[in-house]
């Protein structure tokens, strides 16, 4: 045991070492370690949050899909109904058109027929009158029987 001034030198050295460590070594190292553990904790929290958000988004997407599916079904049903309606309406329209054309044709035929009949009557009455004239040229005074002939004409 030889205590001497070395002790003082050692103590001063020790004090300087501690001061330097306290000033320049400990704060940056410890701060960095704390910063890193904070970043790791933040990262883990963010990952957890992201996972939760993903789950939320997935369930939202599923909801949305279900809604869209329902809406699509509705639209398809409407379209089918509408197309049926259109087909029905077209059928009805065609039917009525056809009916109308037929009716027109019938009335035209009727008119034609009447006109023909009139023509024929006039021609027949002419023929009859001309025949009767030729037969009766001698006996019948045309002007005297004009009245009767006209009457006949109308009766034919």
């Amino acid at each position, binding site marked *: 045991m030889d205590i*001497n001034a*070395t*002790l003082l030198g*050692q103590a001063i050295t020790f004090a300087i*070492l501690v001061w330097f*460590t*306290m000033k*320049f*070594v400990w704060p940056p190292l410890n701060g960095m370690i704390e910063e*890193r553990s904070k970043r790791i904790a933040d990262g883990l929290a963010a990952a957890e949050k992201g996972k939760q958000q993903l789950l939320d988004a997935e369930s939202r997407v599923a909801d949305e899909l279900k809604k869209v599916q329902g809406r699509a079904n509705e639209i398809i049903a409407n379209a089918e109904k509408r197309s049926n309606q259109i087909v029905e309406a077209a059928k009805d329209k065609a039917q009525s058109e056809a009916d109308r054309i037929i009716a027109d044709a019938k009335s035209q035929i009727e008119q034609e027929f009447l006109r023909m009949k009139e023509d024929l009557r006039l021609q027949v009455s002419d023929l009859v009158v001309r025949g009767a004239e030729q037969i009766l040229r001698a006996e019948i005074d045309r002007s005297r029987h004009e009245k009767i002939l006209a009457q006949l004409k109308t009766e034919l």
Partner: protein
Amino acid sequence: MASATEYIVHHLTFNKVTLGGKPGGFWSLHIDTFTMSLILGFVFLAVFAIVARRAKVENPGKFQLFIEMIVDMVDGQVKDIFHGKSKLIAPLSLTIFCWVFLFNLMDLLPVDLISWVNHMIGNPEAHWRVVPSADVNATFAMSLSVLILIIGYSIKAKGFGGWMKELFSAPFGPKLGPINFIFQMIELVSKPISLALRLFGNMYAGELIFILIALLPWGAQWILGGPWAIFHILIITLQAFVFMVLTIVYLSLAVEDH
């Protein structure tokens, strides 16, 4: 060949210079202890300061991680033991641990390496004790600094009056004031003595045993030297750790009420 006694004495003699007063008195300096301490302290500061300067939060290198591991270990001990707030305790503990560890590590240098170097530089009779912690001056320098800190922290935490009151009233109550004071003083003084002598004793004994092993025939030295060196790896780390932990414990006791 010198005798065994001369050999041992040669290895256990400090390189001492007298600064003033009578030769060998208090005002002399162990150049070897002091120089080794300075070099080792500088190694510690340089390594840690460079790592601290280059430290990155992301993608730390292996060496940075090793340094961080030490810092984290010290920080964990301080947080476990010392519950007050102090900017000093953690850096103090780190310094103690690393410095004492490096002191002790010198014990693993071959005992005759320094003598061989002295021989090579043409000064075979020079003394050079290479393990600073095997010098009571080095261990007491630290433990007495710790004692000053204990007193300082006690006064800071409780006030001078509060500290005095505690010295006279614990552990037996205020009626037995002087007895309390004697007990407290014994406790206070025993702290630095036990700190310093524990470390010194371990390292001195370790060094002495290495010297004794070195006296064996060279072919047989490894039989004892190997196991003792391996065992010493544990001892030197453990002693550094114990010194650090006890320092934290003493300082935490200083700020807590008894």
